[in-house]
């Protein structure tokens, strides 16, 4: 017998595969047990610890979910009055900075003009040596309060000349300056929207990233909701159609330069109407202040109808709130506009009811960009011996034209205390790595009465120290020990003094609650105009300067903020809701500019200003005010996405400051835009127009209030208009479904749901499109980050996306958000095409995806009308230590399998298991999928549609409800959408 060579090879191949498959031995893992059991850790059971989010100055409370002493997920602390259980996208992504690859692992010291790793002792000794000789020390930090203020004060008090500066790129220093001139109080009032009926926002993007986005979005949603009969209405006047503009009842396109004129006109108008009801002395002062700010315009700055409808709610009831101060409208006359707006608030009566002075709001004590730049200048000129920088990044947040890095290089000694590399650490002489806030003790007082307590939630990952401990050690080394031996003692001493009683239970209660909270009290003395600073009020320029070139805005968006979160990949992978671009930070170009320069979406555009130039990808925005370009904060190259450095707006901003407050102007004029080539945008949504499909529906408030709900359309019937695009709000339970049989149903046996029918409602009226749910989903479900190139190939793995829909609305257009996750169809198209039975309808109503059965045919994704199924084209390895963030309860999917939203099956299973172990039914509100848990506005509600009393079931039966595409494809989803309600009818016209 002879064997051919080819036959032999084949036989070897078959036998080889067979024998290898037999070698699939279980890996020999090691199991490690504790030597001594920690008190509160049960392996396999998650623990939650309260602390504070430090991703922005808002100071939301956190609940950190830990497994086996490793933090894996951040959730909002429901007891903290700022976050109330919710978090914004940056808060959700904050945990990525703990495990990020930009962490500083060991101390660095500048030796021969290069930063080199040194042992801690050497770095501390060298620095202590310089501090011992220093007489002038400046401490520059981000917003800090509580114990850190104390230890910093103790540390600085040992030097003859010392000062502490606190700086945030989104500070409200102009508002404080205006309040100081008018009322003699240099502070930023605490904002409470629960008592007002109307908010007119002049560029204050309170639903994007403005001073306290979670808190303001929650208060807005609660009062604005249809359940609350639109108790609060919001009009947004601003240059960009951002999240606030789309969620507001009306968006009034208004360039930043005209905001002062509008505020002044409104203030004059209200003053005329209210003058007689004011105390005569106050009326005189008000008149004087208004006269300083400018004359009453001859004609109102808005068109007649709009002017009246804005003036209406301002005058008809006291308490209307006018806000100003977002990044995209911060001009060099911000103090003057703030003064006009504060006068307006005084006239409406909002000061004292919604704007609370004397609260000790953390924004009140911030210092302006000018002061910071001057302090760095002083250090560069040798007037300061040691400049310590902690918790802020002046070199990466101030305009490049100020040349902060080179000035820091000239300074005698610059010490950067940071947990991540940044432009500032690169320019420092000493880089002292500090604990991440999640590894530190501390506290953060948002106001005098809202005091948050921070506790470490894991052992330090690297050779870092707590910033407070570092100051204490440096003091000790210079021979001047501080009051307490370590920073934790500072914290415990302060909180012991604050506690009602001195037993240990009180301390534990504060740790569990995450702090001590009370509503800010009304001010002890009334807020009144005083005659001290009125003469120094500047005039508001009423003429819009028309020069060459376009106007550049520098917004701070919900995902980017001031750029400090740019090291967190989730925030790049999740597309910007307004532009639907991921990883790219495009230049937004107004339609007229685009026409003028021949720029189209995806072109490279160069922007040139007096102080620099950048090149970036362009997105043409028809919604941007004419002659305007916008480039959000958060670009720049280091550190950030390495593959695609984004244009940095700081290269364009000229060093122009508000003369009174020293606040940096973020609106630049005279910018030359030009086409510079073509490129490719990484977009996740190709089109925002749904053509003849009815996907993202709305109705008018008048109809909702009158009970005129859209007619029910049966399965298969094509609706005649948006108003009819609905097949009613039948709860997708078997009984209902059987009553409405579709001809196609003859071939399907509809499943029964004997015990539960899990489902969700999405209230489009509350959704602001912020994207917190998407980031939460990434964190909870181990969704990999695929990167820019894969997103261009449409291979992103997001389980939940927020679609942007542009819908014709009378004369204009309306932008609506539609969160789309797996619809968990009762009659699912994906299930019937799977050859491996990898996706099935469970008796609890979920469409389950079983990764180990999946063979990757992708038939299901092709047959899914919602395009929510995602395919793993690669194995996405997690770097060490980022793998520690993985949720152990969720399978990490390998290459070649399909994945999709599971409605957080692991959370459902955990609660049902617990309920069964305790022999009780599942309680309402016990199961919260990650997206529902984090939604600041409460747009998502999860529940069991078999429980008629549950909120989700009641909402699903709301006549606003509809199910996505069901009228065409008869899928009977378990997700019920509730229509957006338009407060105002569409403006007449084609």
């Amino acid at each position, binding site marked *: *017998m*002879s*064997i*051919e060579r*080819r*036959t*032999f090879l*084949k*036989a070897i191949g*078959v*036998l080889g595969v*067979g024998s290898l498959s*037999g070698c699939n*031995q*279980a*890996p*020999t*893992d*090691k*199991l*490690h*047990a*504790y*030597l*001594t*059991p920690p008190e509160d850790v*049960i*392996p*396999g*059971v998650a623990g939650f610890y309260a602390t504070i989010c430090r991703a922005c100055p808002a100071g939301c409370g956190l609940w950190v979910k830990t497994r086996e002493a490793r933090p894996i997920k951040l959730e909002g602390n429901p007891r903290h009055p700022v976050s109330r259980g919710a978090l914004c996208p940056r808060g959700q992504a904050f945990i990525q900075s703990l495990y990020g690859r930009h962490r500083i692992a060991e101390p660095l010291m500048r030796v021969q003009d290069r930063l080199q790793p040194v042992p801690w002792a050497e770095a501390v000794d060298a620095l202590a040596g310089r501090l011992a000789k220093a007489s002038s020390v400046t401490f520059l930090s981000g917003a800090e309060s509580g114990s850190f203020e104390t230890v910093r004060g103790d540390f600085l008090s040992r030097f003859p000349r010392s000062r502490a500066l606190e700086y945030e790129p989104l500070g409200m220093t102009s508002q404080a300056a205006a309040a100081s001139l008018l009322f003699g109080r240099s502070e930023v009032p605490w904002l409470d929207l629960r008592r007002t009926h109307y908010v007119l926002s002049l560029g204050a993007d309170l639903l994007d990233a403005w001073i306290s986005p979670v808190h303001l979005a929650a208060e807005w949603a609660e009062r604005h909701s249809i359940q609350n009969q639109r108790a609060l209405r919001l009009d947004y006047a601003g240059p960009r159609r951002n999240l606030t503009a789309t969620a507001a009842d009306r968006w009034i396109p208004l360039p930043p330069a005209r905001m002062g004129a509008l505020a002044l006109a409104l203030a004059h108008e209200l003053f005329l109407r209210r003058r007689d009801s004011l105390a005569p002395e106050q009326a005189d002062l008000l008149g004087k202040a208004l006269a300083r700010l400018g004359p009453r315009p001859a004609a109102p700055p808005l068109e007649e109808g709009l002017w009246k409808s804005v003036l209406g709610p301002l005058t008809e009831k006291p308490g209307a709130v006018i806000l100003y101060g977002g990044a995209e409208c911060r001009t060099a006359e911000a103090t003057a506009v703030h003064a006009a707006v504060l006068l307006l608030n005084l006239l409406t009566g909002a000061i004292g009811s919604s704007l609370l002075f004397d609260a000790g709001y953390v924004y009140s004590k911030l210092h302006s960009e000018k002061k910071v730049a001057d302090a760095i200048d002083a250090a560069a000129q040798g007037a300061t011996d040691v400049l310590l920088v902690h918790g802020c990044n002046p070199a990466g947040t101030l305009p490049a034209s100020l040349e902060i890095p080179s000035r820091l290089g000239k300074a005698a000694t610059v010490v950067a205390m940071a947990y991540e590399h940044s432009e500032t650490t690169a320019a420092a002489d000493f880089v002292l790595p500090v604990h991440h806030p999640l590894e530190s003790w501390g506290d953060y007082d948002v106001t005098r009465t809202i005091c948050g307590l921070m506790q470490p939630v894991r052992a330090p990952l690297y050779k870092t120290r707590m910033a407070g401990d570092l100051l204490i050690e440096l003091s000790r080394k210079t021979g001047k020990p501080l009051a307490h031996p370590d920073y934790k003692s500072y914290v415990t001493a302060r909180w012991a003094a604050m506690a009602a009683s001195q037993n240990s239970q009180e301390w534990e209660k504060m740790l569990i609650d995450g702090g001590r909270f009370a509503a800010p009290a009304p001010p002890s003395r009334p807020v009144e105009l005083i005659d001290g600073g009125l003469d120094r009020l500047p005039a508001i320029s009423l003429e819009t300067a028309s020069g060459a070139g376009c106007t550049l805005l520098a917004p701070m968006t919900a995902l980017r903020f001031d750029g400090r979160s740019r090291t967190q990949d989730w925030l790049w992978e999740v597309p910007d809701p307004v532009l639907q671009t991921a990883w790219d930070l495009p230049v937004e170009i107004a339609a007229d500019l685009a026409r003028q320069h021949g720029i189209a979406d995806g072109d490279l555009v160069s922007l040139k200003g007096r102080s620099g130039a950048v090149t970036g990808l362009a997105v043409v925005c028809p919604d941007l005010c004419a002659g305007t370009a916008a480039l959000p904060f958060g670009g720049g190259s280091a550190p950030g996405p390495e593959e695609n450095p984004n244009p940095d707006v700081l290269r364009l901003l000229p060093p122009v400051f508000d003369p009174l407050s020293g606040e940096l102007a973020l609106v630049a004029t005279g910018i030359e835009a030009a086409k510079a080539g073509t490129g490719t945008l990484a977009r996740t949504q190709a089109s925002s127009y749904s053509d003849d499909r009815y996907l993202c529906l709305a109705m008018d408030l008048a109809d909702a209030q009158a009970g005129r709900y859209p007619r029910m359309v049966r399965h298969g019937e094509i609706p005649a208009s948006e108003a009819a695009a609905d097949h009613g709000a039948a709860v997708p339970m078997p009984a209902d479904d059987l009553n409405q049989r579709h001809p196609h149903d003859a071939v399907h046996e509809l499943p029964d749901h004997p015990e539960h029918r899990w489902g969700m409602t999405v209230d489009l009226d509350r959704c602001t499109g912020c994207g917190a749910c998407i980031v939460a989903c990434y964190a909870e479900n181990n969704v990999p980050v695929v990167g820019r190139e894969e997103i261009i190939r449409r291979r992103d793995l997001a389980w939940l996306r927020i679609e942007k829909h542009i819908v014709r609305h009378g004369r204009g257009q309306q932008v609506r958000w539609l969160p789309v996750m797996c619809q968990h169809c009762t009659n699912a198209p994906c299930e019937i095409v799977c050859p491996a039975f990898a996706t*099935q309808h*469970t*008796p*609890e109503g*979920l469409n*389950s995806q*079983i*990764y*180990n*059965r999946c063979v990757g045919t992708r038939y299901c994704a092709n047959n899914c009308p919602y395009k929510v199924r995602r395919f793993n084209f690669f194995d996405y390895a997690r770097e060490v230590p980022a793998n520690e963030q993985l949720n152990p*309860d*969720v*399978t*990490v999917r390998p290459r070649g399998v399909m994945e999709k939203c*599971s409605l957080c*099956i*692991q959370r459902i*299973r955990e609660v049902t*298991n617990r309920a*069964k*172990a305790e022999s009780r039914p599942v309680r309402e509100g016990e199961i919260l999928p990650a997206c529902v848990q984090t939604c600041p506005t409460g747009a998502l509600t999860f529940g069991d549609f078999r429980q008629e009393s549950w909120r989700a079931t009641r909402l699903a039966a709301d006549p606003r409800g509809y199910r996505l595409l069901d009228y065409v494809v008869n899928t009977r989803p378990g997700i019920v959408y509730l229509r957006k309600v338009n407060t105002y009818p569409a403006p007449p016209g084609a």
Partner: protein
Amino acid sequence: MTSVNPVPTPRRLWGGWAGPLLLALFLLAVGAMLLGFFYYPGLARQHGRQIAFQEVMFGPKLEQPIAFSHRLHVTDKQIDCAYCHPNGERSPHPGLPTAEKCLGCHNHIIPQHQEILKLKQFAADGTSVPWVRVYYSPDHVYFPHFRHLKKEVRCQECHGEVEKTDRLSQVTFYMGFCVQCHQERQAPMTCSACHQ
């Protein structure tokens, strides 16, 4: 062959004995798989500890860092499983005994035994004992011990007669083993009951 074509035509691919031989091998393999899939789980359960086919055929007795005997502790000393694996009723994982718990007894009982000295050395060094994992189920399986204990599934039903064994061999759980029991006891049979 009288072809005018100068290129020799290859012979039949499965000519000679190779074809039947490979076919026989293939059938043998299929037969073994069918046997393993349908017959083996039941057989394995009857034999208690001997669960995995691979383990029966090739399974090594695992070398553990400390020569711990379950037979001695459970059968001779009558210690309950849950004394050393305490979290079974409140956690998905029953947990391993901490060194502190082991030494709670062994500081008094045979404290100078060479294996106990090893344990003391680990405790003194502050390193955990690197026990080699015995029972293995894949990552995509979620097995909550507390649910099974609540339903009064005895430990031995899955783990075999541990109490009769000195040195455990590595065991891999396969789905057929789980499914058979779930069918018998009318436990949830949906995929997402175990896979998430």
